[in-house]
């Protein structure tokens, strides 16, 4: 990994992490990942070539993981060769950037239940990227997933369900390795609209404490309204 950082420094990109990059575009520093499939766009994001390497700009208004980075995410375990279980792949915007990051030796199990968005996920993302295994299943039934094997390094959950935290916990129990990382997007409005967002985040976080160490909790405003992200580590 050190080597890689070194090499990329030579390309004079202003990265502060080996997995994603800050690229100057139109006078602004913008977040980007190295395109795993050169020439391939996923959501009309801008492609930028610097020193022969193609990067895809990563739009924080379209991807909550990018929003978390913009809002000072302190832990970023996604790296070359990571194995990820991603619940709520949707049309695959964020998945595609994680796919760039984990590279050809990494693997992402992308779970999505709604067939309309899954269609776009297949068409635009999964078909082109060899490290993605698409799973059209209900995240409530982790036992019915096909083709997932072994434990994963990271479970990332972005499903708008009232009982999303419980669903996420069931999935972690089954598929997350001890000491692995857990990213939970909390859609405060989906759980209970009568409570204040802060209280919802606190309550949801409370449910995790038995099995997780809470590392950070990030409000995604202004990139996303009524959303927060909680990052936790699975206890050994």
């Amino acid at each position, binding site marked *: 990994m050190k080597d890689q950082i070194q090499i990329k420094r030579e390309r004079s990109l202003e990265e502060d992490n080996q997995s994603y990059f800050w690229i100057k575009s139109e006078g602004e520093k913008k977040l980007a990942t190295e395109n795993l499939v050169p020439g391939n766009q996923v959501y009309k994001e801008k492609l930028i070539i610097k020193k022969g390497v193609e990067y895809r700009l990563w739009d924080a208004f379209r991807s909550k993981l990018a929003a978390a980075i913009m809002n000072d995410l302190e832990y970023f375990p996604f790296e070359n060769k990571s194995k990820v279980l991603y619940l709520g792949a949707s049309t695959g915007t964020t998945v595609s950037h994680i796919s760039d990051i984990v590279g050809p030796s990494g693997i992402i199990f992308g779970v999505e239940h709604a067939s309309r968005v899954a269609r776009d996920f297949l068409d635009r993302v999964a078909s082109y990227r060899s490290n993605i295994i698409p799973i059209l299943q209900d995240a409530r039934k982790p036992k019915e997933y*096909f083709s997932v094997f072994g434990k994963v390094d990271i479970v990332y959950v972005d499903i708008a369900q009232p009982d999303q935290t419980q669903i996420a916990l069931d999935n972690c129990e089954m598929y997350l390795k001890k000491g692995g990382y857990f990213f939970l997007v909390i859609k405060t409005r989906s759980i209970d609209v009568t409570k204040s967002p802060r209280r919802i985040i606190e309550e949801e976080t409370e449910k995790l404490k038995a099995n997780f160490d809470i590392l950070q909790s990030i409000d995604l405003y202004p990139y996303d309204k009524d959303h927060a992200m909680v990052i936790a580590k699975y206890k050994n």
Partner: protein
Amino acid sequence: MYSVILTELGISIFNEGKLEKAFPFSNPVKEYLLVKNKESKLNELINYLASIQRGVSVSDESLLVILKKYSIDCYLMESSELDNIQATKPQIIVDSGFASNLQDTLGKLREFALGLSSSKVTEVSESPDLHIIQAINSLDEIDKIANGLSSRLREWYGLHFPELDNIIDSINGYAQIVLAGKRESLTKQVFEDAGFPESKVEMLSLISSKSRGGDISDVNLAIVQSIAKQILDFHELRKKLEEHVETAMQEIAPNLSAILGSAVGARILGRAGSLKRLASLPASTIQVLGAEKALFRSLKTGSQPPKHGLLFQHAMVHAAPRWQRGKIARAVAAKAVIAARVDVYGEGLNQTLLEKLNIRVNEIGKKYENPTEKD
């Protein structure tokens, strides 16, 4: 100890951790689904297992059912064993000869996942309720379009004949008049052909002769008429769509149609996403489908929650006095969810549902004849 393991690429028999026999799938997606749906024959496997004449543990419940059907002595693996299989699946696949190495396994598993996902997408795409949803969405879009186009037509032709805008409410009637041309060409016959009653025809002729509109050039008129023509074409398309929604709803959701009417029923279906999903929703959710924004606002600010969403379009709801509407919408929603469930099971039209709804709505009408102080 024999164990029979189902993988995405075939079925393997292991004995004491060593491969005994492997039955690869030639078409993994299809054959795997057949097993999962308990429709496989699996002759070779059955014969082989029968020949072993010993109890075997099986990794998959569906496979177990099939084997039992053929009187194989078998039982489900313990969960620790299942966990172990889950953890080492790529190795099992390689050991079974379904793939040449771990890299190849990954590629084949991915291919399988893409294929299985695709076939699910295909299956869903054919469900008739999705097509009804497309039809009703198109119909609503066309209504929006006809309104927008009609405003443009009224503004433009209004330079020539401004008084017409206030007299003719009908989008089509207006377009038909425009098609006839300039004010000078608007004979009584034109108004009659456009279907206006005699009293209106008289009034239109009179006003047309002393309009305060300006002259319109032939070039401009020709374009304005093309816009009018498009509006009339849309009207035809709208009729087709309406009939289609009606027919299709009668076919796949006769009970929902009876309770909600085919158009409102189709819209509610669209909000729910599918007939199956609609049948699983609570009545209170159906009551406010289409009023999600108002619902969130009310929960956030403590204002009155909405009493109806799309159901406001239901004849029984909007014809009722204001203070009864919430209660009627609730009654309609309650019957709609039952109707959807009956339709999911394809049991044909159940007359009593609608009768019960009528009785309930009559009750509401009587019980709440007058608004209370709170209303």
